[in-house]
């Protein structure tokens, strides 16, 4: 990168955007998704002539899912390499510290993954979450649906197992609490550390409770392991909801294609008809050979949000420009692949997530009614 520090340089040289991502370690799976999303965004923007007529160039570092690495990464990107803009990393745990660095260097900080509540309680003015809803609201539609079922069919009991990660827990506990209020009894409520690989005993407890609903606050691999462990113990719930994991392209194969009926919330649907989304899906597919998933989409959204601000304000470099970008985003609404987004002063988006379900070997939107592509399957068939 150019050591010219802030100032960015002339109009012809590229806009350098610094990112630090967990390409290895606990969050490597979603981290890579986000990386692909950013790359897709850069490629698409560049072939359309870049931002402000300048090409964009990504500088991506690996933070190994470590908070200390993520901070020194952003510090080196901003202070050492003097990048013009930064994009956020993956996972709440890494978003908070890196957002602070960005703030102290007065940088705009749009992020694709820090959905958990406390991200927005740190008093950042430079932070924006580029997705429709914060974690707790992801399952709103599902909760409403289940509780609206007639007395007889309505699930009575639920079991929860969540990774010890603010995002995963945010989603799972959002659903758990709403169900509990609705009179559903929570029989099992487990937390496991991100590095857990043996789920047999957690599974044993869930199986033994034989709850109607199983809620997995999962990233990717832990979700898969939990499901396999549950299969091994031959436990058959009426509803199985897992955050993020089921949307992963490898998911079906990983659990032996016993996917029918598995649920997952998503901020984004490949089939949603927003103009930029259609373009994104097909361009992405032609670049990577396979359609994007949610992480990619969130990353792409991040790009779109920043791009919108840059084009509107007409600058992209360190210094006072950043504050202008921030102010602009606070005032305006941006059209993205997940629809129009606007934020409150803390950077919270104001929307809700869609609910997807595996139907006939494909993952389809089933809730809310108006956006559905298939009917909600209930109770879930055996896996």
């Amino acid at each position: 990168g150019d050591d010219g520090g802030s100032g960015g340089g002339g109009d012809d040289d590229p806009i350098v955007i610094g990112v630090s991502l967990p390409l290895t370690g606990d969050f490597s799976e979603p981290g890579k998704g986000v990386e692909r999303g950013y790359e897709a965004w850069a490629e698409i923007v560049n072939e359309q002539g870049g931002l402000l007529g300048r090409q964009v160039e990504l500088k991506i570092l690996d933070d190994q899912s470590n908070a200390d690495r993520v901070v020194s990464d952003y510090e080196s990107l901003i202070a050492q390499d003097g990048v013009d803009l930064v994009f956020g990393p993956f996972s709440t745990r890494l978003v908070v510290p890196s957002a602070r660095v960005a703030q102290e260097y007065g940088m705009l900080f749009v992020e694709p993954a820090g959905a958990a509540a406390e991200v927005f309680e740190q008093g950042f003015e430079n932070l924006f979450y580029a997705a429709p809803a914060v974690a707790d609201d992801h399952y709103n539609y599902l909760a409403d649906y289940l509780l609206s079922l007639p007395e007889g069919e309505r699930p009575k009991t639920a079991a929860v197992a969540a990774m010890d990660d603010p995002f995963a827990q945010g989603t799972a506990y959002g659903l758990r609490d709403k169900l509990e209020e609705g009179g559903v009894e929570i029989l099992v409520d487990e937390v496991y550390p991100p590095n857990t690989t043996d789920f047999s005993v957690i599974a044993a407890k869930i199986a033994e409770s034989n709850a109607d609903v199983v809620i997995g606050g999962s990233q990717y691999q832990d979700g898969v392991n939990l499901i396999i462990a549950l299969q091994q113990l031959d436990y058959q719930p009426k509803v199985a909801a897992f955050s993020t994991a089921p949307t992963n392209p490898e998911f079906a194969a990983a659990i032996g294609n016993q996917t029918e009926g598995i649920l997952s919330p998503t901020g984004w649907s490949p089939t949603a008809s927003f103009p930029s989304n259609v373009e994104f899906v097909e361009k992405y597919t032609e670049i990577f050979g396979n359609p994007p998933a949610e992480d990619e989409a969130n990353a792409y959204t991040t790009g779109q949000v920043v791009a919108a601000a840059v084009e509107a304000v007409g600058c992209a470099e360190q210094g006072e420009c950043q504050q202008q970008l921030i102010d602009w985003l606070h005032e305006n609404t941006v059209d993205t692949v997940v629809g129009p987004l606007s934020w409150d002063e803390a950077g919270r988006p104001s929307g809700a997530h869609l609910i997807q379900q595996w139907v006939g070997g494909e993952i389809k939107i089933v809730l809310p009614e108006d956006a559905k592509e298939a009917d909600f399957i209930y109770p879930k068939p055996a896996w």
Partner: protein
Amino acid sequence: MAPDAPRRRRRWSRAVSLALLVVGAALVLSFPFIAPNPYILSAGVVILNYAVLSTGWNFMGGFTGYISLGHAAYFGLGAYGTGLIVKYLELPGFVAWVLAALVVVAISVPVGIAALRVRGASFVIVSIAFVLILLLVFQSWREFTGGSEGLIVPRPFPDLLRPEHHRAFFYLFAGLLAAALVAWWVIDRSKFGTALKSIREDEDKARSLGVPTTRYKLIAYVLSALVTGLGGGLYALWFGDLDPIFQFSILIGSYMVLMALLGGVRHLFGPLLGALIVGIALEYFKLEFGDTQFHLVAAGLLLGVVVLFMPDGVIPAVGQLIDRFRPQQTSIRDVSAAELLEQNRRSDASATGAADAREASGEASTRDASDVSDASDPKEVTR
């Protein structure tokens, strides 16, 4: 000649140390002003922090030869201690820092008593176990420690901009390091130090000579924990975001060992030198291969090379190199039976006591000279 060669070496190394001291001090003090950008400065802070930690480690490892791979435990305790005290008691950062140090001491005593019951490899294992326990506790006890979301420590100087903040802490770390070095130096040359070193060589023998090994080991251990803990606390105040996985990682602990070893555990400046080399290397690898795991391989290779080719560290290795250019000489002067008999007669006749001893030693050293000469000349000897 034989006896004063070591003396000369001692004088020589003292000179070197002095030179190092002056140059080092000058460099350290001026560094914040030569540092081209805040990132380099922050890297400098990190390196000083490493130096403090490995010097702290060396109070135990260097003197008593008890290798603790789990010293990150005290780094983490110091850091979390500070953070938690600030959070719950709402005390100013540096007061919390001191209190945390006391807490670390309080914890290290019982742990030391337990761990120091075993030696050698078992101790290594115990030290590893200790840090892993703490990792578990701090990860899972979320109500108190914030769990794996980590803990946010408010800045002691909230109104300082990031670069000034780095500068301030650079000097704080430098001060701490200086204090640690002085302490180590005092012990090294003291009777206490000699006793500790005898433990390193043969603990039971040392005991039988009246060295209260249990107590001394414990003192060394607690001292070591204290310095490491202070380092951790300062780190917390500087860095602000504590993450259990990083604070209590075996990796940090082994970096301490690597650094001390690389520089030379028996030398005052060994750990400091090691920290410089390793610290710079790590930052370099991070910037060069930031998006791969290659930096691990590099660190591993470095460690391996050190262990295999200069197990006593860089400083002694250099020393030996210089010795090569000295005329080769044996430290063992030969004495023939005839001379022994001579001595028999003399010392048997003489009464015991320092007076005669001094006189005798005088003429002992003259005998040295003559002997080496005739040792080098075969014909003389047996006659």
